[in-house]
């Protein structure tokens, strides 16, 4: 049997704390995006719950020793959503939160797209879509061969599945039954030019991955418990790699950004003005997050 490390039990108390954490991370995310003046909003917001669950529950890692040799590896293939990873890593203690303001600025290690050499804890450089999955498979191949305790996770967008290299990597991962590899697909249905099913249909996505010898789990990507359960399940499957298709809502948490591809590639302050003028977009978004979308009336509640 391969070496498998357990993911801790997710108690109700822990779940609640993760949900709160995801909300705070979303707020920091929007502020850093607005300061940067460019970058993507919808995708990063949609991944806040998954990143929070990974860094605060699923991953075996140590922010104080980021290159610890037995750490779980998390690759972000769709590099354009990097701000959510940066914000989550800052919360996890990889670097001071004050550094989030340097996003996309000259001299910052928070590059517009993640750069491994600037911050090795990012595990890989990404941005050109499709390159993350083969790298994660290469890592997992070595990890499996050497019986390493670490697990490899790779987060991919749905749009990037249109890149042929993804399916080359899927063939490789399937061939070698990389049980220590879990791909997480952010199935939010949008890409820059519109909806994925209009641009280049991906469905039936489950069938495609099953045909490539993957175990497929579909979850609500905003339900942290479902996501953690899927990660646990993926560790129990050792005859093939696992792909978690996480159905997410782009822009999740900010009503006026949700499911609107016009918010895919712009930050608050530069977005479409059908609801709010540019100068008010950040404050309106933060207000919504702080009041949990109107579930509570005042921010102090």
């Amino acid at each position, binding site marked *: 049997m391969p070496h498998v490390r357990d993911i801790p039990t997710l108690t109700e108390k822990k779940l609640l704390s993760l949900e709160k954490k995801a909300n705070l991370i979303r707020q920091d995310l929007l502020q850093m995006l607005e300061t940067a003046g460019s970058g993507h909003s919808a995708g990063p917001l949609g991944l806040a719950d998954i990143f929070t669950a990974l860094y605060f529950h699923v991953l075996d890692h140590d922010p104080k020793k980021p290159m610890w040799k037995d750490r779980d590896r998390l690759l972000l293939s769709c590099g354009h959503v990097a701000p959510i990873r940066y914000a989550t890593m800052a919360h996890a203690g990889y670097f001071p939160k004050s550094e989030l303001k340097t996003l996309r600025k000259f001299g910052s290690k928070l590059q517009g797209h993640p750069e491994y050499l600037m911050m090795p804890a990012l595990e890989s450089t990404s941005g050109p879509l499709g390159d993350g999955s083969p790298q994660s498979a*290469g890592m997992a191949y070595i990890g499996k061969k050497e019986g390493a305790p670490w697990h490899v996770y790779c987060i991919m967008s749905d749009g990037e599945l249109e890149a042929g290299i993804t399916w080359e990597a899927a063939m490789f991962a399937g061939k070698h039954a990389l049980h220590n590899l879990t791909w997480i697909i952010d199935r939010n249905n949008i890409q820059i030019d519109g909806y994925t099913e209009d641009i280049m249909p991906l469905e039936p996505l489950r069938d495609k991955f099953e045909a490539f010898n993957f175990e497929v789990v579909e979850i609500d990507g905003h339900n942290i418990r479902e996501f953690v359960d899927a990660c646990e399940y993926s560790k129990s499957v050792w005859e093939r790699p696992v792909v978690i298709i996480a159905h997410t809502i782009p822009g999740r948490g900010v009503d006026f950004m949700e499911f609107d591809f016009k918010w895919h590639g712009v930050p608050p302050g530069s977005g479409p003005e059908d609801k709010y003028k540019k100068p008010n977009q950040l404050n309106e978004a933060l207000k919504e997050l702080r009041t949990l979308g109107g579930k509570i009336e005042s921010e102090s509640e």
Partner: protein
Amino acid sequence: MTVPKTAKLNPAWRKKESLKQIPTRNGFGEGLVEAGKADKNIYVLSADLTESTRAQMFKDVFPERFVQMGVSEQSLAAVAAGMALTGKTVWIASYACFSPGRNWEQIRTTGCLQRVNLKIAGAHAGVSVGPDGATHQMTEDIALMRVLPEMKVLVPCDAIETRKATVAASKMKGPVYVRFARSGSPVFTTEKTPFEVGKAQVFRTGNDVAIIGCGPLVYEALMAAEELSKLGIEARVINNVSIKPMDEKTIIAAARECGAVVTIEEAQAAAGMGGAVCELLAETYPVPVERIGMQDRFGESGEPRELLEAFGLTAPAIVKAVKKIMKRKA
């Protein structure tokens, strides 16, 4: 004026018939085995061209460190980079027209931008591939690779030097491209011929013109120099194996002392090794330069020797270029 003792060429180098004709790719296979013995972290990935790239030689000795990728050059590079990120040194072997021809972006992003130990073996480069024709005759790879930050580019001149280059590349930090050819070519260097990344070797002394070559065509340069000598022109012949980093000192000295330069490579004359020499000399010591190579066209089917002759890549073409440049020389 003749071969300097330091070059340690095969004493019989003038007699082509007496030299072994071995493809440079064989040196690659031998080099992989040598490197694999010295370092158990070396892996070799092949894209369905294991025998013809000679990756087979490594596979035979270290099957557990050989990975078959099938016809998937993009993931060939990126899977290798992922392995390299775990601390391995990973060679990827295919034909140059597919790797780096097809996977340049993955080499750029996952190899160079991450500065990992990704080593690219570009086999079957140049028109001497022969009957397979233009689709398989890679002539743009030197340009594609040398423009990449972090990338080193080596084009060894015979099987022995290819073995040395492969071993050296395996020990270096960061991405390296090594280019070699399909068909047999004279083995005219020896084990004792110096090889060092970043160094060009003077294979023949002379002060009338410098012929700077890379790959198996360096032998053509030596043959041309012999012909030129009969005409009273003493050519310096330089084996410019390390295109990046280039041995600027040796190249600039050749320009200064000879006053004219002819470059020869089995690749596009544009942006290749000759292009790199021109960039260097234009900024340091401008002298007339003639670049011999593919002149903005593709190859076609034919026998290797026939094609080299047809595209003006053999000794007579060098002699012609030298005669032309002697008129330009101030």
